């Protein structure tokens, strides 16, 4: 039997394993963005969609969204370049203010902390927080040394690949700024993290102490100045709290 190998129909099939898919329901809905699970050319991904906010003037809103997408793309890339892990960028739609990026499987630092609180005894908990905090502080130190301020450091914006506290992946760079960064801005970046930890995790002072330890160790030139500014910012914060 002769088989005609040039049969046209034989070639009309798409290669498998490189598809596009997107969940209909978001896995996260924040004030600024929705996150959907997706597949991008066969890779597990998420799509971060910044939507229009009705309460903001539409031109301003559009400009802000574009600015945030830009800041996020640049922050994610810059962090990679200085050895701080961030999700891989797969696609950006500048028109629709969407970023498709690698889906990091695991959990957030926030979830991990509350999980080990349940599973560990007091000493283990403290030790675990301590070694994680030092590593996180080192990462923040590296970013600051490269003149990147994250802008929204919280334990939700720190992901742990495979739930492993040694595999930190930083996300949510929409508020980050780069270049001409002052010691004050770095101090505020740290302060934001301190407050976020305090309001999210009770009895976790050890964590931020260790963050500062790691931060100082990673010691870019500006680390000392930033820590001094942190102290100033704290003072101002306390005064504000007293006045109410």
């Amino acid at each position, binding site marked *: 039997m002769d088989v005609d190998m040039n049969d*046209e129909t034989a070639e009309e099939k*798409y290669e498998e394993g490189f598809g596009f898919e997107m969940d209909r329901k978001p896995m996260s809905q924040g004030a600024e963005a929705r996150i959907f699970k997706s597949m991008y*050319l066969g890779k597990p991904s998420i799509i971060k969609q910044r939507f229009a906010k009705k309460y903001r003037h539409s031109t301003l809103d559009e400009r802000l969204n574009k600015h945030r997408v830009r800041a996020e793309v640049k922050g994610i890339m810059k962090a990679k370049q200085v050895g701080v892990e961030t999700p891989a960028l797969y696609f950006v739609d500048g028109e629709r203010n969407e970023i498709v990026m690698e889906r990091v499987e695991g959990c957030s630092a926030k979830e991990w902390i509350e999980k080990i609180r349940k599973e560990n005894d007091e000493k283990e908990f403290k030790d675990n927080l301590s070694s994680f905090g030092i590593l996180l502080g080192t990462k923040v130190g590296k970013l600051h040394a490269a003149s990147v301020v994250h802008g929204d450091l919280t334990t939700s914006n720190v992901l742990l690949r495979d739930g492993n506290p040694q595999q930190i992946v930083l996300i949510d760079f929409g508020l980050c700024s780069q270049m001409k960064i002052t010691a004050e801005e770095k101090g505020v970046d740290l302060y934001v993290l301190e407050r976020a930890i305090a309001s999210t995790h009770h009895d976790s002072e050890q964590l931020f102490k260790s963050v500062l330890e790691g931060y100082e160790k990673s010691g870019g030139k500006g680390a000392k100045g930033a820590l001094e500014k942190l102290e100033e910012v704290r003072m101002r914060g306390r005064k504000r709290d007293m006045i109410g």
Partner: protein
Amino acid sequence: MIYRRKNSRMSPGLSRLYQLQPDPYDNTQKATIRICLFTEVTNAVELREKVRNGEIDAALIRPELVYGVYVLLAAANRTVHQMAHNRMATRSLSAELIYSLSPSRNISDSLVTFGIAEKSTALLAAVFDDKSGSAMKKLCKQIAGKPTDMGELNELINAKQIRKIYQLTDAVYNDDSLSDHITSRLVYKDFAS
């Protein structure tokens, strides 16, 4: 059973068809790209000339610089997206694809780096919108070389040169993360400055 090939040079099944989405997750818009790897190519000089004078409308790419099909498809999807929004930096989809592979914003440098060279003996041919495969078949007749299974691409990759071009020299990466870093660089290009 006897397999007979009408055209001894082209055995179908060696070229691959992939689906793209100009606006990802908008299923109403679709695009496709067909890719075929050629080895033992002996007429690269002539092929370059034909690309230049428009006789060939396909991207002819150096396979040694393409770190896997995913990277090529990510660049291809950027290409059809830019096309759909009238934002191409070059004059044709084929040139835009080659440009999209490059981390550089210098168009002519990018085309020289990622397009085939006079000395090339292997190439990746890519054609957009060729569902039937007829364009690839026509192209195949002009390439003095052997259509080769895409799986062979791994053997041709020059990882050292790729790391240099994408400035990934210091860190150690496994295959997946290297391909992810390359894609990140490509996406970042449109936002650099």
